[in-house]
């Protein structure tokens, strides 16, 4: 469908440092013919939101190992990881587990 997608993105555990220290972002993805999936979302984040050091957030097509992704408070491994198709008002959380303890 061509409707734009509204998403709530959250960054925690230090990942927010790559996004100007802002933890909560509300974004609207432009409408496109195919539904948005996680892979495209990540590419979009890399292109539009990451201010610096993309290699600290992403590795190739997916997130860097050590960054936990939760979609609507559930592990993304249960949702199909990169193939999950986003729906309107989904809540995606990226938590970096590489720091703190």
């Amino acid at each position, binding site marked *: 469908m061509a409707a734009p997608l509204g998403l709530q993105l959250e960054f*925690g*555990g*230090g990942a*927010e*440092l790559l996004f100007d220290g802002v933890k909560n972002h509300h974004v609207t993805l432009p409408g496109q013919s195919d539904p948005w999936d996680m892979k495209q979302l990540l590419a979009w984040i890399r292109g539009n939101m990451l201010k610096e*050091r993309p290699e*600290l957030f992403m*590795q*190739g097509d997916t997130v860097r*190992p*050590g960054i*936990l992704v*939760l979609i609507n*408070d*559930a*592990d993304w*491994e*249960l*949702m*199909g990881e990169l193939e999950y198709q986003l729906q309107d008002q989904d809540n995606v*959380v990226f*938590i970096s*587990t*590489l*720091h*703190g*303890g």
Partner: protein
Amino acid sequence: MCQVEEDYNGLECNQEKIPVPTLNRKCMKCKEGTAVLIIRVNDAFCQSCFKEYFVHKFRAMLGKNRVIFPQEKVLLAVSGGAASCSMLSQVQEGLSREAPKKFRFVPGIIYIDDGGACGRSTEERQRSNAQLKSIFTETGFPYFIVPLEQVFSLPTSVLVPGTSDPDPSNPSYKQAVDQYVKEKQTLTQENVVSAVAQLSIEDSAYSPEHKLAFERLLSSLKTLTAKEDMLQTLRQHLILHVARENGYSKVMMGDSCSRLAVKLLSNIALGRGAALASDTGFSDPRYGDVVIVRPMRDYSSKEIAFYSRMFNVPSVFISGLDTKTHDKASIQRLTESFVTNLQSDFPSTVSTIYRTSEKLHTVMPPQSQTAEPASKCLLCLCALDIKVGKASAFHATLVSEQLSQIKLPDTSAERCCTEGQGCGPGGCCSSNRLPSHQDLKTLLCYSCRLTIKDMVATDALPPYIITEAEKRQKRSRMKMEISEYLLEDEEEDGD
């Protein structure tokens, strides 16, 4: 197997990734709730089962290793990150249950503010200190917020391991628990109330000289590896000091399984192989009277992050020395990225390393309590591993080091008086004789030597280290002088 990124992009890495059949998997434990999390390779849990599992693991870890006695004072070392804050919330939860399942120790919290090392400004430090303060006041335990600069006012007793003779009146764990149960329950209530009443708020005050001295210390270390190592050592000393001052006999650290796996490998790379068992094991008895305990060592960082998110554990992210550095900035950083990358394709990596570390034990010499302080490393207080014979690997590294270096004219000529004549008891001829690299080397274990070797100026070390080093050197020199007059004891372990 070790080439993770390069060659695997084209291949289907099917062996470890089991495809998920449907979107709504059921929890494997209760078989009813919808799964929200996958732990280990393929175990899906629902929210409530996960919480039970998490809480149970903490209690089991403490119960299995019976080192924490009832009514003991335990210091929780909190760094603000997810793991130590989860540990704090577990302790809180454990203390709030009805007896008999209640935890029976008395906690306190310590936070070491090392913002000065990481280049954070005073306002940033004050801000994060305030955030942490509010988290700590909510728990109701006494807390200490100590800036790392205070390391410059530590006494030398920090470097001397205390005695750990158990009280004859407090023999074994089981008996201690039985004894406690017999006493009245109200005793515990009173203790908690009095603890709340004396909330010792440690002022985060440090003088500007200390701040400058601290910056000087860090800038004299050239590599990030050495800086991290030195920071870790200083932090341990400060925690130890606060614990001793306030009567805490145990310190709980929040190291998770993943972090310990990284620590194990990087310690081997740093030359600390001899102390692996105490550095990564559940309990670390090297300080004698204060035992370091790691109850979170069974949790992977994924479990901790998920728990802390799902149950809203308050935590504060504080950037460290290696935040946003590239992969090869230090040995620790490189090991972390190696293990994490390997773990993503081979999910059993971290648990394998963890199981290996569980099997490590230190061979304790028979009379460790009466060992003189001189046989422990000055900085890390593990046993000195350098007094070995000529046919050892250590000696070989020394020889190859000497051969490969261009011989400088003897810069370590701070020899006082004349050769063969030690310093008299009335002090040395030169007024402030600071230990040079050569002198410190004999007092340090292999890896601490490497860290000190990286220092441009050893006089930047905090005064308590320098004083203790001088004392030990004087003592060993004196021992050498009077060695022919000493009656040698019969060696018990028959060397």
